[in-house]
């Protein structure tokens, strides 16, 4: 049997395993635990310098309700959805089309175009910040939802195309050829055969992109200014206050903001059916 059960190995291995596993787990979870504890710490604890000790009280209700009362976080979360959902739809839809073209059609510059998509991922986006801001200003897209969505879609399509192209390339090509001989047109092949078969990949991609865009702070600060556009990552800044940083509120806000990607993951979970294409060809 492989891997060998830990109970069957030498005693010292078993003991070391039982000691180090919890340590590693706690180390790994420490930042998350820190945020979670801070989010329920009363403000007085932080004022008196009790950052990492036991909280003196449980201020869950106070902190979480004041996050919603003292800032526009509800509005910012809505903004985040208004940016993220169109971006996910746009990037996944576009990359399915580009991925299909690059995976299925033989044309001269196929590989070159594919490498262009891939190479785009290697450009650090920090160096693009100023040109993109100038461009959006000139196009009248600065500080608009449309601008933010358009640029997110543009930046994510490279990676998505790489992902979808490789997934589609792995489908048995005979499926497509068989449909062609039957007289099914190319778009219907794409829609009725290829798309249903790459559904697990689309689900995985949607979750990934949702998380990327939801957690984006960089473009949110570069391309958005007004409260109408600002997504939750940038909006949280508001809780900093004028004279002191309210860490307990920022922590609480961070946890609230992290919930949608987690929910998204569990929602899409059932679509990750691996091996949907199993049994497609060989017996």
């Amino acid at each position, binding site marked *: 049997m492989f891997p060998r059960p830990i109970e069957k190995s030498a005693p010292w291995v078993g003991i070391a395993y039982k000691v180090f596993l919890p340590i590693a787990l706690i180390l790994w979870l420490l930042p998350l635990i820190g945020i979670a504890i801070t989010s329920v710490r009363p403000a007085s604890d932080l004022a008196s310098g009790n950052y990492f000790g036991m909280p003196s009280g449980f201020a869950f209700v106070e902190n979480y309700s004041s996050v919603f009362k003292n800032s526009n976080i509800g509005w910012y979360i809505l903004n985040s959805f208004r940016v993220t959902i169109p971006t996910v739809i746009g990037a996944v839809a576009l990359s399915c089309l580009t991925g299909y073209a690059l995976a299925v059609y033989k044309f001269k510059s196929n590989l070159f175009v594919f490498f262009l998509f891939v190479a785009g991922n290697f450009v650090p986006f920090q160096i693009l910040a100023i040109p993109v801001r100038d461009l959006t200003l000139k196009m009248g897209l600065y500080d608009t939802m449309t601008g933010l969505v358009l640029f997110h879609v543009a930046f994510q399509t490279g990676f998505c195309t790489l992902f979808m192209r490789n997934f589609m390339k792995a489908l*048995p090509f*005979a*499926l497509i*050829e*068989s*449909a*062609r*001989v*039957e*007289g*099914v*047109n190319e778009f*219907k092949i794409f829609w*009725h*055969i290829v798309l*249903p*078969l790459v559904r697990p990949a689309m689900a995985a991609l949607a979750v990934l992109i949702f998380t990327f865009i939801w957690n984006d702070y960089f473009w949110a600060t570069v391309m958005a200014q007004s409260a109408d556009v600002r997504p939750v990552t940038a909006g949280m800044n508001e809780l900093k206050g004028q004279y002191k940083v309210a860490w307990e509120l920022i922590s609480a806000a961070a946890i609230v903001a992290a919930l949608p990607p987690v929910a998204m993951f569990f929602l899409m979970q059932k679509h990750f059916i691996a091996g*949907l*294409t*199993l*049994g*497609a*060809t*060989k*017996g």
Partner: protein
Amino acid sequence: MATVTLKNAKKQFGAVEIIKGIDLSVADGEFCVFVGPSGCGKSTLLRMIAGLEDFTSGSLQIGGKEMAKVESADRGVAMVFQSYALYPHMTVKQNIGFGLKMTGHSLADIEGRTKRAADMLQLEPLLDRKPSQLSGGQRQRVAIGRAIVRNPEVFLFDEPLSNLDAALRVQMRIQIGKLHHDLKATMIYVTHDQVEAMTMADKIVVLHAGRIEQVGSPLELYHRPNNMFVAGFIGSPKMNFVNVEAGTGSSLKLPGGGTVKIDGMKAKLSGKLTLGIRPEHVELAKKTADANVSTVVRAAEYLGSETMFYVTLPDGTEAAVKADGLAKTQVGDTLLLHFPPKACHVFDPDGKTLHNGDLSK
């Protein structure tokens, strides 16, 4: 129903010529099998007929109409793939009806045609299953059903049985043969298995390195091969080839000093030649006087109904002999062989046939 005619068909991939000028005519309702070793271009040729590969040059006519530049869908062909190519997310019924539905056939029409195909192939109980719930043979039948519903003029099969086990292969071979009889459609079938070719074909096309070596009925190819390639390829186990030298008149000198006198030899023999004789036509001689050659048994397979001896001739040539199941010779023993002249084929040094034996005499 239609004839298929290829004229000087050529196909190049880059600088490599895969199909080097094929002229072929398949009659209406004929079962034509392309056979050849791997890499001979038989699948490529089939895909060219299907419209999945372009012609580099040459022409293709189906039912008298020029089709080389016509879209695959408009050629009136249906193809069955080696991998079955069933859509894994659709049920059997949806798989069979998919092409019709996508090309705008009415639901009643699809229903009727699906039912007819299902009846023909005993698919009725499987219609609501997904391909992953089917066995290999069932998948193959669905793939054939998908071809039938389109009422094509020409059926194209690309090694359809090579993923099946031996027993199922025999069963499907019979089923496809029956289907051909029922539908009376033109069928072109690609295989590397010469047993499939022999059992199913009206006409066999032997391909080798992008060219046609010979076209003919199975028995024609078996009895009168045009060259050494066809002689060696058709027939199982394959024909024995023995290096011989021309003797006086129409006699041939065998390794070890024996001779064979070929009856009815028309060509003049000279120099080094090759003698071909099938394992099933070699006879065991009881006395040295009757034998043409004395050999040593290297391996023996006792199959009950027959015994296969693999022997070494005096010059080191290896040969196979099919003897009856009662033969008692052991490995290491000497085996005396008699080559009946009417079963001997003679080939020149280029591999061309100089003489075909005639067993009917």
